[in-house]
């Protein structure tokens, strides 16, 4: 635990002494701010129109009309940003040959991987936490339900955590950070849109593709549904990513 903490601290410092974390967080927040603004504006104009009709007016739901699409937008932007956060994790160590220090120190490969993983999770948490400021306005001027919002954030966190585990895996494969980022981005996008293929697939394949797709599991969570299937899906994804990273690092050394 102490060792994981040591690595994690070093990585978090590296994120915040280089421009990477600031740039990623800022761009993320600017885009989310823009989406939030346009969604609220749209909701507002809808409310004005519906105000004449009592029945429709009661159907208006800020959770569904603002938060649900906002979470979807956030997840897509995470998909673009996370490869940039994870690309350096192992690639940079290898390029600078600082991995020689880590692997000749009395700490295990697992501890190194977890330390780096938690550091990226920390940056993700900072990103998500800062978007919480937007909700202050919503709660001040409206009356949304908090539970589905928290559930959506949990979904975002899990999606981001799964993204990071894929990113760390690709980072361990190459010493070129750009290659690592592109591979991560490609893989994430593929898993995101896997359910598109399920429209044309039939039978068992349809459900397999649907199950594997990030989108399907995330969609539930933005609508306030917390299902153990989704949790298991994300946790196994994270485990798989970290396990593959471990295998890559071990096999590189044995080759």
């Amino acid at each position, binding site marked *: 635990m102490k060792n994981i903490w040591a690595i994690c601290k070093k990585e978090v*410092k590296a994120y915040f002494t280089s421009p990477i974390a600031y740039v990623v967080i800022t761009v993320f927040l600017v885009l989310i701010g823009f989406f939030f603004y346009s969604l609220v504006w749209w909701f507002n104009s809808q409310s004005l129109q519906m105000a004449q009709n009592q029945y429709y007016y009661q159907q208006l739901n800020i959770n569904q009309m603002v938060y649900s699409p906002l979470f979807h937008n956030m997840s897509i932007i995470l998909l673009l940003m996370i490869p940039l956060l994870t690309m350096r994790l192992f690639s940079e160590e290898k390029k*600078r040959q*600082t991995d020689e*220090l880590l692997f*000749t120190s009395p700490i295990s490969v697992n501890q190194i991987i977890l330390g780096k993983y938690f550091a990226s999770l920390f940056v993700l948490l900072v990103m998500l936490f800062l978007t919480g400021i937007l909700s202050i306005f919503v709660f001040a001027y409206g009356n949304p339900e908090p539970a589905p919002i928290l559930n959506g954030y949990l979904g975002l966190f899990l999606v981001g955590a799964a993204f990071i585990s894929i990113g760390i895996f690709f980072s361990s494969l190459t010493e070129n950070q750009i290659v690592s980022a592109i591979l991560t981005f490609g893989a994430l996008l593929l898993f995101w849109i896997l359910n598109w293929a399920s429209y044309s697939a039939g039978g068992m394949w349809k459900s397999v593709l649907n199950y594997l797709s990030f989108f399907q599991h995330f969609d539930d969570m933005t609508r306030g549904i917390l299902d153990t299937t989704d949790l298991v899906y994300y946790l196994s994804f994270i485990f798989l990513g970290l396990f593959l990273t471990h295998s890559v690092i071990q096999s590189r050394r*044995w080759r």
Partner: protein
Amino acid sequence: MIEVENLTKKYGDLVAVKNLNFKVEKGKIWGLLGPNAAGKTTTMRILTGYLPATDGKASVADYDVFEKPNDVKKITGYLPENVPLYPEMTVHSYLNFVSEIKQIPASQRKEAVEKSVAISGLETVRGRLIKNISRGFKQRVGIAQALIHDPQVLVLDEPTIGLDPAQIIEIRRLIKSLKGERTILLSTHILAEVTQTCDGVVIINEGNLMASGSLEELTASFKEKEGVVIKLKKGEKSILSLLKKIHGVDEVSLVDDEFKIEWTKGKDVRDEITKLVVDKELGLIEMRPLAMNIEDLYLKVISGGVEQ
């Protein structure tokens, strides 16, 4: 303290180290000498647990490197050829990080960092970013990093490479001052480095062991003897006794198809050997002097003129 037995490392088909054997005793400085691509770095990486070996055994302080890597890592300080530095860290925060991953208890960390800063002479740059300090200081940070957990064994891969002559002398002095409690294995391709700082030497070339022993042993074995190696068309065993009969020859041996002839220094018998060869029509193909000191041996290793 450091023991290597039949160590072999292959990268695919490429054999980097082949059946290497050597032993470094406690408290000594030994040099691992060889030209570039001789297998020095590979050997050191195996000893420090960075790479696994393909075959053979290696142990540090009686801990097997492959079975108990963590015990070995705890007592070994390692300076890789490319000093593993994080340029965006300050010298101090870097050493602090290393002290954490080297398992120094929190209460002793500060003291350990101070000590390694003092030994390596880094007081003036401790607050600066590593990317802004000079090459010589970077090398010293590397040494400080290797020393921080007060290891019993130090493995230094080309510690003076890329430094200017004044810095080289300083680093050598630093290494010598570390001797005593610690056992040090350093690699180099400069012979002078070995003769100036080391107690013993292991010479390797293309992964093969060429010679090993303490400097005294090696020079003593070379001192009183001279010799030649000759290759003959009629290289039969019976010629051994003929060669032995030459007055002044101490030793004759047949290695592969070559005769190694040695005599006491000063009593040159080359004339007699040639005479015998011509008289008996043995057909001389080649005659060359035998490597008679470390320099000769090493020069031959470098120029590629030596088989085992």
